């Protein structure tokens, strides 16, 4: 490796155009990463710019739609639909199976929100409003019942009840001629 670099440097020096230090850089570095043309640029104003941007992001011109130009800095980055990776086909042979994404596919601006570990936008069995009504209705009902339960608690009595009029002697069919026994279950 060092020998190859040194030889290349010597050749660049002999051409007499500068120090030739750039020749020391190994060739594989030049192939890594994208070129400047692959970076996002400013908002596309003309149809040709839109077509070029669509090509840059590997999209069809009909599918390509940039973010509105409101000074937020999106440039020509495509506005992709807010769908999570969970909605994609689990059985397809994706290049990245855990991300359910193919190489070169345009990434959503908020891709990190829509990975499979995070926000899931796949359709639910029931509509959002029905789910909210049922869950919060259940919680509300429980809270109300707990409130009633606090107001009317359950407990075991420690003594028989003390009724007036000598423990309701006459109402219970006692003999009015007789003097009833005094019944005192408890005193306060």
């Amino acid at each position: 490796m060092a020998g190859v670099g040194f030889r290349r440097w010597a050749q660049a020096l002999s051409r007499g155009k500068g120090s030739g230090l750039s020749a020391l850089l190994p060739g594989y570095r030049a192939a890594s990463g994208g070129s400047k043309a692959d970076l996002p640029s400013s908002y596309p104003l003309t149809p040709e710019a839109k077509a070029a941007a669509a090509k840059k992001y590997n999209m069809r011109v009909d599918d390509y739609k940039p973010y509105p130009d409101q000074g937020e800095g999106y440039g020509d980055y495509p506005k992709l639909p807010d769908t999570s990776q969970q909605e994609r086909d689990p059985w397809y042979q994706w290049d990245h199976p855990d991300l359910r994404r193919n190489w070169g596919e345009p990434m959503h601006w908020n891709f990190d929100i829509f990975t499979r570990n995070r926000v899931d936008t796949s359709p639910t069995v029931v509509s959002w409003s029905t789910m909210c009504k049922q869950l919060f209705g259940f919680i509300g009902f429980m809270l109300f019942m707990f409130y009633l339960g606090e107001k009317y608690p359950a407990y075991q009595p420690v003594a028989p009840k003390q009724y007036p009029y000598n423990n309701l002697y006459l109402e219970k069919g006692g003999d009015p001629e007789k003097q009833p026994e005094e019944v005192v279950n408890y005193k306060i």
Partner: protein
Amino acid sequence: MWFPASVLTSTLIIIFFLLGYPVVTTLVSGPVKPGWAKTHVKPAVKTAFFVSLIPLFLFVNEGVEVVIASWNWMNTMTFDVGISLKFDHYSLIFTPVALYVSWAIMEFAMWYMQDDPHMDQFFKYLLIFLIAMIVLVTANNLFQLFIGWEGVGIMSFLLIGWWSSRADANTAALQAVVYNRVGDIGLIFALAWMVTNLNSWEMQQVFVTVEGFNVTPPALGLVLAAAGKSAQFGLHPWLPSAMEGPTPVSALLHSSTMVVAGIFLLIRMSPLLEKSPTALTVCLCLGALTALFTACCALTHNDLKKVIAFSTSSQLGLMMVTIGLNQPQLAFLHICMHAFFKAMLFLCSGSIIHSLGGEQDIRKMGAIQRQTPWTSSCFTIGSLALTGMPFLAGFFSKDAIIEAMTTSHLNAWALILTLIATAFTAVYSLRLIYFVVMVNPRSMAISPIGEGDPQLINPLKRLAWGSILAGLCITLNVLPFKTPVMSMPPVLKLIAVIVTVLGFLTALWLIAPLGARTQTTLSPNMHRFTSMLGFYPALVHRATPKLSLVWGQTAADQMIDQNWLEQVGPKATVTLNKPLITTTSNIQQGITKTHLTLFLLALILVVSMIIF
């Protein structure tokens, strides 16, 4: 007999050494020897269990109340944090129970995980978890408890996400961490309250110096912490999701040890909790709601491990109810009983799942009692113990809890919910036994069914003995701290059994031949509500992350990027300087009229200054 308190400390240090030594051996460079788990880990845990019996027997024999060993650790001018170990009834009983269950699970895991290429790492994680759990239960100050608390949380994350190539496992691990962290907010708040008001984290000092303070805020903080760790309603979805982890993890962490850490915290802090009726009421109501809600979810799910997970959550709700009744010792008794039969249920489920080639749906099981007699029998014993079958382990704790409930002055709705949850426990237990063990086989014709391996059978046998005898052993040797109600009407005495029998009868009626009923489900709406877990995960797991992540992105974009880095920084320079520059350069255009005007203004200014 003279009882040296240092014996307790020494045995605990020996236990830490026994458990820590295999972990330390993995720190050397190079892989561990093959069979390291069998030669180092299982014997370590087994020996630690037998060593932990020594302090227990000494403690019970001598009738000691508590032994505390303290060392100085960190000292500031006004605040000290020490290492202090508390050997009381709770820590000395829980440690052997946890080690006994861990011994069985480690042996089972050697069979269950034998094909895993990183089996040794798995056992290392289990050992680290066990050390953290023992640190938690023996802690006498809240800081030390918090160390164990976080330790078990981290190990839970690593173990749930064991099969990290599964996105669902990663999501479940993340859920466990996030929900536990929400609960940790409560614990940290309680710690902060104590350090600012009581100047100590030592439990004895907290209980004494808290007189005269309004203890409701820290008590509610502790309840929030317990709700997170013990999967109470509102912070419960992580527990069924945690079934993504391997079955030994579910058996050890998510049924016997880690999930009871929240309840254990409340038991430890019960002297503080009992001074706050609000906190006790919250515990009661939250526990009752959890018990019923998760029992309902267990009725309609078909994944074997998930049903057992919901059952765990329901029993944790029951423990929370017991805390709400101000009966911490009963809650602790239920923790110990629950550890045995729930771990056994999970091991049986692991055996069944392995035998059926990875099948977890109970609708695709059935009639395995002849092929796997040990598993089927232990599964039945565990389920019966769970329902509170008289004189099995669960009976001693559950019956006492229900009796305490019915003879207390409490929220009537909480009582009703708990009784219904008890009935539902019987329903889903019988449902599990029916679908998994009985009736006709609905699994694949050729499955690797078999239970010849002693590493599978011996743990089940040990846990079965525990599920049968542990209740009797513990209740015969430990006196109750609070006098139980001795006399009650016969109906109240038998209410637990009556409710359980009603549950069994309901289950039998529901599984009757379909000709007796025209519908497969009594109420499709309720079935959908419970099978979707009340839509709670669907709503919360979508709305909360999306809102927080979108707001975070907006804050980063607009507040930081556009505001601070543009408007306030560079653009503010332009905004402020441009008018000044414009004014200054407009004045200095070289126009004579402007110069004369300025000269006149300056003259007027000077004259007025001279005059005035």
